[in-house]
């Protein structure tokens, strides 16, 4: 299984904190997002188009083409605004 976590505006758009899917047929983050968007509200797809979303794999910044393995945790991260 691969788990996706949503934050901030993406969490609002997804209407959920996270999404879990079977790792079969998922090679990288793009595959994962494609599969995820089939199952989640279209507002999430719009939100992903709308801003520069960063990606993390297992709590480390990664690229959209990062390869994924069963058990990975992926974060979809809108521009940060702490401090």
């Amino acid at each position, binding site marked *: 299984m691969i788990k996706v*976590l949503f*934050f*901030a*505006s993406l*969490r*609002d758009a997804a209407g959920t904190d996270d999404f879990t899917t079977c790792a079969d047929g998922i090679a990288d983050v793009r595959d994962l997002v494609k599969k995820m968007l089939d199952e989640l509200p279209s507002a999430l797809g719009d939100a992903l188009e709308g*801003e520069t979303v960063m990606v*993390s794999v297992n*709590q*480390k910044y990664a690229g959209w083409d990062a390869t994924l393995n069963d058990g990975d945790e992926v*974060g979809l*991260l*809108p*521009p*940060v*605004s*702490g*401090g």
Partner: protein
Amino acid sequence: MNQPYTSHIYICESDFDIAEQYKAACEAAPHSGAVVFFVGLVRDMYSGRDNQDSVEYLELQHYPVMTESLCEEIVHDAHQRYSFEHVRLIHRVGKLYSSEQIVMVAVASQHREGAFLAAQFVMDHLKTRATFWKKEVGTLGAQWLGVKDKDEIAVKRWD
């Protein structure tokens, strides 16, 4: 080669007490001659606006584990450049009302230059790299903030 340092990094909903944090910093850095503190507070104005609209509260979210590890990394990077004995970094999350404390960075160092620069380095990188998100809620409704242009510019000076 810089002297070793200790750090205390903490992300929490509860408020922090400056007197306690200052005491802890001094105790953790008995040879330091300089302590620099930065405290960030919730402003009552919307980000980037200077008008009558007012923010009632902020909603702060973060990515647990990843945020802590990024903060450790930022403090470590600061220590590659500046000498200090101890750093404390506390960042609150959850619902924070106008004039509440959001974030604190304290750096104790032998000399003031290192303490000032390390505190600024940590704040600039925290703003642009650490996985926190802030939603302003007030008279204009609710909106998530992104990285500010001026923070993007501020962080570039360390490149």
